């Protein structure tokens, strides 16, 4: 029997020519917490999906309990005792706790009829494993994220899990909930189960993990004991640079605010929001999921309609009823979810770039020349170095970073006063991320007022000259230049 539960060496994986994983090696010890750390887009999720059998690796070797495993399928992984708790938790929100716990074993057993008593027994057994108490008949969708997570853990334990992988489990939790989760994690660890904990939050990793594996750009740059590292070294490994160096420093901020929000309130979403935004400034808005940050952005773009409060643009109170009005008021918005809100994937790149500026490009009577679209697309392709040889190709042929550049171009080709970016670099590789940040800095220095909404704190820290922190629909903190650090924001966020 090997000392390690899971050993992976030389793992490679490419998606349509892009290397997502490049020669990754790491080991997981039984009864230990191993942390897989790295920034967004470094390949963490891809690695997890290879372990759980969702993706197949291109190259490399996997040993589980010392035995070589040539091909992992999801069913195989479950049989081996590998359980993944994904961020979305893969639960059935419309079913009860009991049904959620019992359904997998019922299906595996191939039973055709329902037996309430047996279901209850299964569910109780699962909960008892971590000594967790909850109403078995509560609807899953009505539970808090923390409770859902614990139910998901219980469900994983039903399969005699030897390795539990948790994909960024603390993202939507409060500080107290995180403590409770960590208690459960330690309990599991002490019972001999290996935990693989995925995170990019420094303090959590140091608190919970025994071993750490840091990934950057699809490679693992460090693996070893957590105690051998200092937080500074850790951050360096994760980002590949000393973080303090390239803060954005605004060069010419206008005297009068271009946008002023007073007492803005949207029922059940946010209340009494006040802030000012000047030209040349990058304002960060951060907060957990559900803190009202996205709804605030949508209100400024005419997709949500707050009943109370004022939006003042260039000194005049305005009513923004629709994105069309927002566009006329020179407000642009790059949405959170690129695939569903930002792009027409199966249409040409050029048509996507020009989608919001057709009015400008057309001649009398709404006449349009296709060549004008292509020319306009080529301008942005050059300016933004979008990686394609032909703008007539579909947007779906591009990588996430390049797709995001399309969405940005779409708004930048309009004449804007205010640009709102919601999660501008989610799922974007590091290179494109830097391109996008550099471009936003340049635009701000040319006099654009920018709002960046993000829960990627390192992004907020590097780019924003001022930060608003939201919690439960309220502004709970406002930070100026030198106070903006990840630690301070984390402190306020919870």
């Amino acid at each position, binding site marked *: 029997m090997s000392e390690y539960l899971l050993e992976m060496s030389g793992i490679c994986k490419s998606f349509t020519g892009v290397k997502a994983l490049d020669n990754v090696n790491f080991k997981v010890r039984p009864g230990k917490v191993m942390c897989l750390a790295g920034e967004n887009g470094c390949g963490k999720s891809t690695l997890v999906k290879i372990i759980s059998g969702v993706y197949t690796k291109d190259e490399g070797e996997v040993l589980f309990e010392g035995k070589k495993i040539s091909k992992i399928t999801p069913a195989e992984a479950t049989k081996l005792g590998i359980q993944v708790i994904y961020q979305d938790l893969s639960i059935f929100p419309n079913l009860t706790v009991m049904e959620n716990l019992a359904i997998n074993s019922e299906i595996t057993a191939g039973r055709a009829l329902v037996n309430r008593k047996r279901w209850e027994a299964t569910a109780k057994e699962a909960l008892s494993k971590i000594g967790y108490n909850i109403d078995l008949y509560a609807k899953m969708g009505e539970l808090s994220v923390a409770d859902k997570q614990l139910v998901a853990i219980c469900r994983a334990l039903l399969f005699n899990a030897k390795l539990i992988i948790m994909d960024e489990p603390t993202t939507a939790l409060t500080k107290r909930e995180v403590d409770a989760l960590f208690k459960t994690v330690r309990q599991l660890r002490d019972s001999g189960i290996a935990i693989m904990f995925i995170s990019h939050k420094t303090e959590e990793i140091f608190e919970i993990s025994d071993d750490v594996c840091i990934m950057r750009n699809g490679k693992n740059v460090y693996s070893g004991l957590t105690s051998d590292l200092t937080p500074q070294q850790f951050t360096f490994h994760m980002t590949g640079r000393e973080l303090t160096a390239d803060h954005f420093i605004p060069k010419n901020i206008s005297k009068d605010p271009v946008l002023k929000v007073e007492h803005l309130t949207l029922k059940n979403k946010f209340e009494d929001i006040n802030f000012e935004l000047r030209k040349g400034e990058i304002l960060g808005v951060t907060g957990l999921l559900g803190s009202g940050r996205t709804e605030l952005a949508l209100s400024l773009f005419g997709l949500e309609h707050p009943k109370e409060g004022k939006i003042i643009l260039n000194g005049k109170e305005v009513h923004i009823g629709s994105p*069309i009005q927002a566009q006329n008021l020179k407000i642009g918005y790059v949405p959170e979810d690129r695939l*569903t809100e930002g792009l027409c994937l199966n249409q040409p790149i050029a048509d996507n770039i020009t989608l919001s500026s*057709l009015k400008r490009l057309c001649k009398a009577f709404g006449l349009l020349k296709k060549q004008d679209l292509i020319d306009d697309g080529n301008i942005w392709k050059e300016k933004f170095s979008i990686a394609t040889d032909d703008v007539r190709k579909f947007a779906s042929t591009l990588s996430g970073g390049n797709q995001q550049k399309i969405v940005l171009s779409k708004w930048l080709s309009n004449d804007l006063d205010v640009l709102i970016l919601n999660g501008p670099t989610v799922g974007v590789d590091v290179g494109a991320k830097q391109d996008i940040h550099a471009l936003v800095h340049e635009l701000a220095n040319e006099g654009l007022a920018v709002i960046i909404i993000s829960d990627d704190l390192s992004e907020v820290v590097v780019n924003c000259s001022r930060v608003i922190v939201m919690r439960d629909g309220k502004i709970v903190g406002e930070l100026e230049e030198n106070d903006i650090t990840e630690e301070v924001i984390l402190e306020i966020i919870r």
Partner: protein
Amino acid sequence: MKEKIKNYASKNGYTVMLLALMAVLLLFFTITKGGDLWHLGPWKGICMQFPEFGLMTLGVMFCFIIGKIDMSFVALGDFASILAVKYMEANVTEGMSNGQIAGVIGVAFLIVIVIAIIGGVINGVLITYLNVPPVMATIAMQLVWLGLSTALTQGYAVSGVPPLYSEIGHMMVFGFLPMPLLIFIIFFAISAFLLKYTVFGEQLYMMGTNEKACRFSAINTHAMVIKTFVLAALFSCFGCMIMVSTMNSAKADYGTSYVMRVILILVLAGVLPDGGVGKISNVLLSIVAVQIIATGVNMFPELNAYYASLIWGGLLLVVLVITAITNGGKKFSFKKKKTS
């Protein structure tokens, strides 16, 4: 040269398929029916018959391109044409000059246009503001229009179409071009122009690909949906007015089989109901191909009208299955999971 043909074929799969289908059909009917097909008669019939459902097809094509569907268009067209015929019946009296009758016909057409706009707006509002799924909204409206027509006419055909109207309908423009065909050509030109050279056309395709992204790109998606359904209603009502001239009457259930035929034509032409795709030139080929089937089937007296539904339904099923199989692999491949 070979390379060029191959390249063309891979890029224009539907065009090649439709041309091949037409060739096979013509060959089949030629073999089975000898030279019967190759007289002026059947071809004249083809040119007279397809414009009415051809117009409807062009209208519904716009709905398909934005990823929606209209099932109510024939019923709406029948209702509009019943009102138009009733109006003409009531207002054309003996001894009126042709000029006066033309005036009455003009007013009747205004009525048709107004009804079409009302019908289109109702469909559009139901779908875009009240978020009713298009199939259900338009099937409900189909029943409403059918019900109104039936109540209004007790289920009987409304005749009393002024002779002048039928005369215009059967006129040969320039001595060789049947009036319905001319009208179809005009509407086809308008449609092609809209799709290829206007902002509206560009937005139609983008809407069909991702409506939400269009809303986030400051496009008035509500207005787009309503405009599209009004367009479909107008085209369809004009199609029904052509039907009035050939049937010399209007009735609540004329042309009900066209609903499925129009869907068949569009799917066959590669204008898929998921939206965002489709070439109007292929729609034209597809209309002609389907008309050849209709004409050809008519040449077999043993296949009487009782088999019509079976034939069209079976064809639609086959075409749907073929497109689902051939597109299935591609269609869902773009739904990439986010990697982070």
